[in-house]
């Protein structure tokens, strides 16, 4: 039960994203799937006639097919390796088809190996392994029919994709758990242990490649690149430039003046240090060193650049004046307080 719940847990979480992809890429996928569709349908009908009585079976298949679909959908996320991913899935299915469910651990292992053999296929192979786990848990009771049913995965997947909304609740419904409850044989236990391991593995595997997929930027010429994605190269170039020029993120006129910032004071011709170069005493953008600024304030106090008086901005002279008046006032008030 635990294993099954774990096995099922990632499905709804992972389902919504790939579904969108599945609808987009359905055309691509259907082209490939069409070949086996007819044969699979035929076999499906045959198997369904055989399995009429066992609903839980079909539900188990549905579940597995859901897994499978998600797996293939996830593999679709990898646009470059999509074809190979599907092939990989196919091969894994055949493994699980040919071998009995007791051997499914090996199939899981093979799927993991398949995942390892091409790093970008992690999503596809790992999810397919989880799908095989699901199918094992569902199919162990009747081993004979597994072969036929497993062949029908893709067909069922197609059928399920047609009506997703109906299938989602059904996959979560109780019949899912029945086969697991029924199958308490030893190989099944090992399977379940394996499935737990595998499920935990696929989760990691799914998460890691997701991160990789997300980490990989869309190629700018990628046809499937979302339009809403911002152009990073453009976005990068702007703030970098602005950072380089702004220095302390000032306004546009400051921006200009920083660009044309002199390396030396235009008054005394001495080099401007960091304090001086970040000192902008006048709105006209004329920069000068603090010494010359102080000297001018002692004199007529007009900006050398625009000849407007400096007193419009509260820099040094006013600050000291204010400070003086403030201290004076404070002293007076203090004396009043002491008096009273």
């Amino acid at each position, binding site marked *: 039960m635990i294993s099954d719940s774990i096995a099922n847990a990632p499905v709804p979480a992972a389902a919504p994203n790939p579904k969108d992809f599945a609808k987009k890429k359905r055309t691509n996928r259907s082209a490939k799937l069409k070949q086996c569709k007819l044969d699979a349908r035929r076999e499906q009908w045959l198997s369904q006639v055989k399995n009429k009585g066992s609903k839980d079976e079909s539900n188990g298949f549905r579940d597995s097919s859901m897994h499978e679909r998600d797996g293939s959908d996830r593999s679709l996320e990898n646009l470059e390796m999509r074809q190979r991913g599907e092939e990989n899935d196919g091969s894994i299915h055949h493994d699980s088809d040919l071998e009995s469910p007791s051997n499914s651990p090996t199939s899981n292992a093979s799927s993991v190996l398949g995942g390892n053999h091409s790093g970008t296929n992690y999503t596809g192979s790992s999810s397919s392994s989880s799908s095989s786990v699901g199918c094992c848990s569902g199919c162990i009771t009747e081993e004979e029919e597994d072969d036929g049913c497993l062949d029908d995965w893709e067909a069922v997947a197609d059928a399920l994709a047609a009506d997703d909304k109906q299938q989602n609740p059904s996959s979560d419904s109780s019949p899912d758990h029945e086969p697991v409850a029924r199958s308490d044989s030893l190989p099944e236990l090992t399977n379940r242990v394996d499935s737990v391991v595998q499920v935990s593995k696929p989760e990691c595997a799914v998460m890691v490649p997701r991160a990789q997929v997300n980490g990989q930027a869309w190629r700018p010429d990628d046809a499937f690149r979302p339009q809403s994605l911002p152009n990073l190269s453009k976005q990068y170039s702007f703030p970098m430039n602005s950072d380089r020029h702004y220095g302390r993120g000032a306004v546009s006129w400051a921006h200009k003046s920083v660009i044309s910032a002199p390396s030396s004071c*235009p*008054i005394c*011709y*001495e080099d401007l240090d960091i304090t001086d170069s970040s000192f902008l005493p006048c709105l006209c953008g*004329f920069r000068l060193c603090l010494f*010359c600024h102080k000297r001018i304030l002692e*004199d007529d106090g007009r900006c*050398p*650049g625009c*000849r407007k008086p400096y007193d419009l901005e509260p820099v040094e002279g006013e600050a000291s004046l204010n400070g003086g008046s403030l201290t004076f006032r404070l002293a007076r008030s203090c004396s009043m307080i002491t008096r009273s």
Partner: protein
Amino acid sequence: MVDFARVQKELQECNRDVEVSGIKVSPKADKLTHLIGTIPGPLGTPYEGGTFEIDIQLPDGYPFEPPRMQFSTKVWHPNISSQSGAICLDILKDQWSPALTLKTALLSVQALLSAPQPDDPQDAVVAQQYLREYQTFVSTARYWTEAFAKTSSLGVEEKVQKLVEMGFPEALVRSTLEVVGGDENLALEKLCTV
């Protein structure tokens, strides 16, 4: 105290492109507080072809105070005293800015030569002539340029010859010319005051 570091750099920068601007500043003596600026007469004016020397005194407050400038070459101009060479220019008075330099000030003086302001005269006589008899003003200004602003192009012997012809003894003329650095007008002034 004059900012000598700045004056030194100003002289270097100004003399770097003498060929382009034609404006030259050189120290008159060992002190950097007394300089001589040279500006060419603007083309298309009665001052064309003349080279005008300007005596520059740097006050202690330079560059926060304007340099004291006056023409040492005699000029016939409404805004320049025909007697003393004093210049009536706002940037040399209340409109001075420490951001200005000797070169930019001399450029302004050069611009003043090409654009007289008779409404704000320094020399009332010249301004009157400029307003009432413009042609007379132009011819007088041209004559003064020919007479006083082109003499610096003469050789030493010619200057000596000219001053000797004025009636000064040749030995005194030569010694005086040496003292004033070969400036004919200054030598003439000095000879007259002696």
